[in-house]
């Protein structure tokens, strides 16, 4: 393996560790404090509403503050979604994909249909993590950009290649070039480039097919032994 590729894989592992640390810090600090603050404010709201003479300008302001804090917590929830339980390393790939689908449905209220043809191969932890992050980003893209609430995830292994697809029937887009000297550098394509780079680092590849009005299909392919 070339030195540069090895260094990039190490960097991937370090990035992952840092991400987990950030998630845990956010979980232990801001999330607990925001929930505690919201609880206190909700209690205050109930008390004020029961007073015989509540200052008229008070309640809408309080409701607005509560709404903003709820919005912040909801935004943070997506970051917490990057958390991986300690048991992740031992889980089978099919379980990991199912868990990700459940988490996505819990956080977004969307629906993920799974079509997994078992057995899927047992792959190294770094490959599992990379696949997990690619699928997470792909599902998140469906939720944020496709304008639909449903996605299908397919996974199968054939002739030494593991393939995982995320498909939606949403609004679609014109896919940018993701590799080579003319690869997109645009800010809105960072997520897509990150997905492809992760795939390449585990010796795989990523393909995006999409047409306006016809939905999007993201496919990652990885060789395995």
């Amino acid at each position: 393996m070339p030195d540069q590729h090895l260094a990039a894989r190490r960097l991937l592992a370090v990035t992952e560790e840092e991400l987990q640390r950030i998630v845990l810090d956010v979980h232990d600090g801001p999330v607990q404090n925001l929930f505690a603050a919201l609880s206190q404010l909700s209690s205050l709201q109930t008390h004020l509403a029961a007073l015989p003479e509540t200052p008229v300008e008070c309640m809408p302001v309080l409701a607005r503050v509560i709404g903003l804090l709820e919005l912040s917590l909801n935004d943070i929830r997506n970051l917490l979604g990057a958390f991986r339980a300690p048991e992740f390393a031992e889980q089978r790939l099919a379980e990991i994909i199912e868990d990700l689908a459940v988490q996505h449905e819990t956080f977004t209220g969307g629906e993920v249909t799974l079509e997994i043809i078992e057995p899927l191969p047992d792959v190294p932890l770094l490959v599992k993590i990379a696949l997990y992050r690619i699928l997470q980003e792909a599902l998140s893209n469906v939720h944020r950009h496709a304008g639909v609430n449903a996605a299908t995830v397919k996974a199968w292994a054939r002739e030494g290649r593991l393939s995982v697809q995320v498909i939606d029937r949403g609004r679609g887009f014109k896919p940018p070039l993701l590799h080579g000297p003319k690869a997109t550098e645009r800010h809105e394509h960072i997520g897509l480039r990150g997905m492809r780079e992760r795939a390449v680092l585990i010796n795989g590849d990523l393909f995006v097919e999409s047409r306006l009005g016809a939905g999007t299909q993201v496919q990652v392919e990885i060789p395995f032994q």
Partner: protein
Amino acid sequence: MTETRHIHLVLADDHALVLEGLRSLIAAEPDLRIVATATDGERLLDAIRRFHPDVAVLDLQMPYMDGITCMQHIRAENLPVRLLVLSAFGDAHSMRTAIESGADGFVLKTDPPSMTLTAIRQVAAGQMVFPQAARRWLAPPTLADPNRLTEREESVLARVAEGKSNAKIAAELNLSESTIKFHLRNLFAKLGVANRNEAAAKYHRRDSE
């Protein structure tokens, strides 16, 4: 007029500010009454034995004894309390393990606190309160096959079969040794074996089938 019976609650969370917030939130609800609070799983278990609450609201991450282990003890002792998990992590693994360990509900700290109040009343009334996506696990495997091992018990068994000590297994799974012993007791009973050697033998036999 008959007096309305309060729903008696025990709250457990290792974040003091969360407990303070919940106390304040619940104090404004006339049908709910907090009978005790705890900052770790061991104290929660103790409080449930002493105060016989209707509902325990608990976090999963707690020192000394985590929420999952605590729920397993509560269910093993048949303590008549409804269990509502209040967690910031809504990952599938946490929800599935909570269901396997006997939780009656799972609410998120990233949702408005009013949802926690609603869930407390729902679990007190005997409902199972879980995010829609987690309901696929609600038909507990223990009903179909009481001897089926939980995911955690499987992890412990696999390590026992590799000849690892309790201390080593505890370190690998980020659990305490007493929790590992608890899982061992349960899995020995389910497998119908008397010790770790017999459990390991059963594991290898099963694996080769």
